[in-house]
């Protein structure tokens, strides 16, 4: 579904993404973890074609990510989701629906369905300027889910959400598993990642340190947080000559 091959992205002389190769299979719920400045958001921006890689290739369903056609069937939620202040949540969702080809009754039905999913029914006609950060995030999630996407790219989806909102997002992601939707999750909330994703990659300084299933990388008695800290703080596998790993094999 997603394929990053030897991708490098430099800003001036700084390598934000440093020669990473990563594959996410169809239906996989994948989380990209890493500290601030690791390069996670740069990867997401490249996936959406907002920026182009300096070297390497990025494919979504065999189509280059820079081609807008690749974004057919892709839903995206940004970390700090913004909605133009002059639009209501309803206007915003209708606009998204229209851009992906919904019209008339179909658009109305789809928008109403998703307003219910994100618990925003009754508030949808208010201007977004009156929305809290969490409400904007909910509307953003609804926009990402419009048209039943095949791939969902979520950049810190729970940012600004209260515990109930976080639970709702988790439920939404759980339901997507049944529909075989691929999820690319970028998150700091390790406890949430543990609950929602089966595969994770840990990234630091633009490099993937490890990519594997949660089961494989969490040893007995450990939590994902322990594993995360272990990789980030001492970069064990990188410095021990083992190099970055994917599915138990070294990453190239």
């Amino acid at each position, binding site marked *: 579904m997603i394929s990053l091959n030897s991708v490098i992205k430099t800003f001036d002389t700084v390598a934000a993404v440093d020669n990473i190769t990563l594959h996410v299979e169809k239906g996989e719920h994948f989380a990209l973890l890493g500290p601030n400045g690791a390069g996670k958001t740069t990867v997401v*921006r490249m996936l*959406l*074609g*907002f*920026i*182009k890689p300096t070297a390497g290739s990025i494919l979504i369903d065999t189509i280059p990510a820079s081609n*807008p*056609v*690749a*974004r*057919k069937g*892709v839903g*995206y939620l*940004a970390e700090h*989701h*913004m*909605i*133009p*202040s*002059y639009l209501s949540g309803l206007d*915003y969702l209708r*606009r*998204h629906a*229209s*851009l*992906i080809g919904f019209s008339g009754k179909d658009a109305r039905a789809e928008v109403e369905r998703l307003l219910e999913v994100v618990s925003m029914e009754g508030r949808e006609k208010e201007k977004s300027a009156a929305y809290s950060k969490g409400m904007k995030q909910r509307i953003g999630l609804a926009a990402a889910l419009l048209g039943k996407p095949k791939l969902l790219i979520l950049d810190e989806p729970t940012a600004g959400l209260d515990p109930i909102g976080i639970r709702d997002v988790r439920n939404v992601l759980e339901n997507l598993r049944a529909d075989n939707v691929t999820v690319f999750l970028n998150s700091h909330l390790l406890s949430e990642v543990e609950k929602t994703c089966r595969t994770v990659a840990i990234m630091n300084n633009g490099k993937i340190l490890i990519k594997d299933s949660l089961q494989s990388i969490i040893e007995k008695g450990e939590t994902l947080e322990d594993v995360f800290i272990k990789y980030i703080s001492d970069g064990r596998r990188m410095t021990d000559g083992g190099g970055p790993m994917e599915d138990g094999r070294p990453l190239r």
Partner: protein
Amino acid sequence: MRLFLKITGYTIFDQMRHKSFYVLLGLCLIFVLMIRGCYSGQYVVNGKLLDSIAVAWYVSNIVFQVIAAGMFLMVILLSMKIITRDHDDGSLVLFLSRPVFRQQYILGRIAGTWFLCLVFMFILHAAVFLTLWARTGTIIFGYLAASLVCSINLLFIAVLVCFLSLYLPDFISAVFTVGILFIGYISDGGYQILNSQILKAAIPSAVPSSPAVWRIVYPKVYMVQAYAASIIDQGSFYNMGPVNPIVNIIIYIVLITALMLAGFNKKEI
């Protein structure tokens, strides 16, 4: 094409959501209606009563140019923030996270802004046209056609400002555009004056020298205005160089649009 038209529609819709748009339109209409007094006044020069229809005719021509120049400012103000405003309020992500080509987005935004300004200008010109008709019974054939000719300048300005705003701060790109227009007005306005009947009558020996090449190829915004004025008064129009000013402006629009699309395609969001 479908997405381009949708984005054009959204642009018009978004601009018209702002109350300031209606306030500006109302103020402009009041200004235009205030000139009604000019059409019914008695003007005496050297003891002779001037023909009120002739006065009304000249006033309408002057107001035509004032409206067109005012619209330049409006289109600059609306175009200079297209990209930065969309970036700041999330509209850019809204469009480009969907299967929308960058060309569709930017061309749709510019087309929407241009169309809105075109209609705005046409309404004001139509108000003058109808006022003159109602007050004096005179119909200036070509007045509304001249308005549409001038609208090509609005498109040139919208494209230019948008292109410059890719590389310069919004305000600087607006000032830069005003500078480009100003130079054109001095160069082409001077040429029109040197060729005018009034100057030739006053100084029969004055022979205008042939203009420099840069003046011939420079964007002919003023010349398009002068050409539109010649449509209104059926008067003479002195073109600079072999290329019609409308063709000159269209060439510039195509060139700048191509550069803008290339630049916007490389822009990191």
